[in-house]
């Protein structure tokens, strides 16, 4: 097993190299000259030159890349040209917001996805199964930003139950924090719930058809005990592991969801940075996102190997 894991870790080195090249390349993909943006309306040539020197924009691209990598490895993600703050500080401020949203979304996704997936597998081929499949597919097919707008329309505008936008930290007021994040968490969790539902359904069908479930039934155990204690326990481990892979979907979704609900997290940070050509912030956010995604992928792989003895060879 250690060989498989070390092989997987070795493969990460070139992947991380390519990720770093891709992310660094984003700076040169974004439109406009950052020095011109920073110089403001007057565009004084002396100031522009000074900015280019200060941010090493006057140096060859490979030199800029090496300098950037060195900085990243020592924890320096650069400085926001617009906000004049270190990118790492911005990441530290915004990451907890998106993480709170991510954790809440995952809870929504797991509760909905696993429950519906189990129901669908238990009632396989019956009306409930078809209905749950349609609901799951509808969840996957609903654009996050539209669902968000519809929820604002219903719960904030029509019923007035929840605030339409904004964010309150749970450390300030947990009730208000819950009120501001419950809708975005549901919006984000909804799309992942459909995927988890499908994984759960197929894993449960496989488990329910297996010999140990047949044995449990033959022993005279109740159907509830067979499904929840025997089949579910075995089916859920890979499902939860696969859930980690959905983290990318969640971060993608957060971009628009945070925009709609005016939540000052990672998603809003990157959209604002793209529109303000704040290269260092774009790079920093994408780098943290990609690294987190790669780390979760690795953990998911290891988790999968741990629960599946056949992959350990």
């Amino acid at each position, binding site marked *: 097993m250690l060989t498989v894991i070390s092989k997987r870790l070795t*493969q990460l080195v*070139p*992947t*991380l*190299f*390519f*990720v770093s*090249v*891709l*992310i660094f390349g*984003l700076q040169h*993909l*974004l*439109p406009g000259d950052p020095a011109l943006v920073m110089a403001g309306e007057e565009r004084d040539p002396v100031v522009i030159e000074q900015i280019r020197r200060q941010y090493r924009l006057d140096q060859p691209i490979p030199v800029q890349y090496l300098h950037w990598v060195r900085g990243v490895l020592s924890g320096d993600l650069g400085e926001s040209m617009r906000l004049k703050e270190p990118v790492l500080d911005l990441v530290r401020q915004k990451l907890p917001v998106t993480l709170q949203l991510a954790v809440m979304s995952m809870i929504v996704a797991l509760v909905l996805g696993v429950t519906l997936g189990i129901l669908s597998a238990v009632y396989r081929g019956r009306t409930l199964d078809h209905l749950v499949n349609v609901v799951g*597919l*509808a969840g*996957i*097919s*609903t*654009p996050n*930003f*539209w669902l968000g*707008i*519809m929820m*604002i*329309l219903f719960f904030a*505008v029509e019923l007035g139950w929840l605030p339409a936008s904004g964010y309150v930290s749970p450390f300030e007021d947990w009730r208000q924090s819950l009120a501001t994040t419950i809708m975005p968490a549901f919006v984000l969790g909804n799309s992942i719930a459909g995927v988890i539902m499908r994984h759960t359904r197929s894993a449960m069908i496989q488990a329910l058809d297996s010999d140990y479930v047949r044995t449990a039934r033959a022993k005279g155990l109740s159907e509830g005990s067979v499904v929840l204690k025997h089949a579910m326990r075995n089916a859920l481990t890979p499902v939860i592991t696969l859930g980690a892979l959905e983290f*990318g*979907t969640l*971060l*993608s*979704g957060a*971009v*628009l969801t945070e*925009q*709609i609900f005016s939540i000052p997290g990672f998603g809003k940070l*990157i*959209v604002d940075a*793209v*529109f303000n050509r704040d290269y260092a912030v*774009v790079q920093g*956010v*994408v780098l943290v*996102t*990609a690294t987190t*995604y*790669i780390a979760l*992928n690795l953990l998911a792989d290891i988790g999968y190997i741990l629960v599946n003895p056949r992959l350990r060879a």
Partner: protein
Amino acid sequence: MSAVTVPAPALAPANQTLVIESPRRRAWRRLRRRPAAMVALAVIAVMILAALLAPWIAPYDPIQQSWRAVRKAPSAANWFGSDEVGRDILSRVIYGARASLSAGIISVGIALGIGVPLGLAAGYLGGWTDALLSRLTDAMLAVPFLILAIALAAFLGPSLTNAMIAIGITATPIFLRLTRGQVLAVRAEDYVEAARAVGNPHWRIALRHILPNVMPPLIVQVTLTIATAVIAEASLSFLGLGQQPPAPSWGSMLNTAQRFLSQAPWMAVFPGLAIFVTVLAFNILGDGLRDALDPRTK
């Protein structure tokens, strides 16, 4: 492709023939047995027809403003209501189908055009080509889809064409990885070995013997990726990086609608429903195709 009729074996009654069904015909027969997939196919056909025939079927000019019809609720005159400058929402939804469907189809075309040849090369050639392309794919897949598409669309400049290119490039690793995996599975098959043994050149083996056999999962992925691309285009347009005003797009219509939620909720309902129905139809069709093309399905 039509069914091939071959003479019956000697022991069969003289008046019987053994019909060997072509894979395409078999897949179509299986797909027809799935009502949901057929309804989805019909919905997609209607959407495509609406997009193509928009100038003839849309009741109004989609960019014609009318100050006498500002934010009118759905009525006999404006079935889906009108927007903040009096434009007919139904007409804009019909014209918006052009942006969404063309973005879905063209961006997936770009992804296929780049991803499949590279995936074939990676899977068939192996070695350094495979290692390099696989790591590149891993790197691209490590950056969340929409974040990469936003960055690329911002670089290329806000326009529908650039949004399609950005989505196409972002979706490329999906097809590269899928094709590579399929090629690896097929490469060691007897018929590929036989083609190699009789001296076929590599390009011919790859294109004539391997590619047709990796098509079924690719067809399914195309359908599902069109659904993703339609949402991605709407997302980019929502952010102002896709279709530019006043040209209609479902995403940009939703962006405008957000500002008038309490006064004119219909502005948000119909473009969103159009995205939802289109994406759902492609996803259901993809599911149906997956079952229909699965050799284990009877």
